[in-house]
């Protein structure tokens, strides 16, 4: 879970945060091996 949480919340305090697309979020999930249907965003 820690491996997910770090990239998931990284950068969200930045003043320049402008949201994250579904594709970008999916890349985080895929990158740590969360590839099942439960984790599909796109």
């Amino acid at each position, binding site marked *: *879970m*820690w491996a*997910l*949480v*770090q990239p*998931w*919340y*990284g950068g*969200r*305090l930045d*003043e320049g*945060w*402008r*949201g*994250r*697309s579904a594709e970008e979020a999916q890349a985080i*999930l895929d990158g740590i091996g969360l590839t099942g*249907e*439960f*984790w*599909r*965003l796109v």
Partner: protein
Amino acid sequence: MSALEALDWAVRTRVYRGFAETGRAPEVARIAADLGSTEHRVRAGLTRLFDAHEVAVHEDGSVWMANPFSAVPTDYPVRTPHMSCWANCAWDALGVPAILGTDGWTRTRCAESGAELDFGVEGGALVGDDAVIHLLTPLRDAWVDIGFT
């Protein structure tokens, strides 16, 4: 994401900064004063931020959640070196030290067994009791009912 206006993003930044610095959500009036805006415009911005899944708001227009932070008490209190706050769930209890880049500790109870659990992050690594986080809502549906999620 681009549907949000500059003021909306400024409101979001102010909400997150308030949580990060104090552990509590800033009031709408405070946000408006800090940004040189009006409560009406801030509330409208918060509504748009809710629609964009950036901030959750109560029916009265006040801030409810800016994930991982919660404006209301939850079963997941988080202590950090400089403040204490509430997280929305077990995932977010780890999200607080992640977003802050600090240590953070949570004492709660297992939702299934009721056993006490202490866990957190120290020096960038997980510490404390082993546990399983049971997520009920598929991620794509997280904002259908963010309170349940």
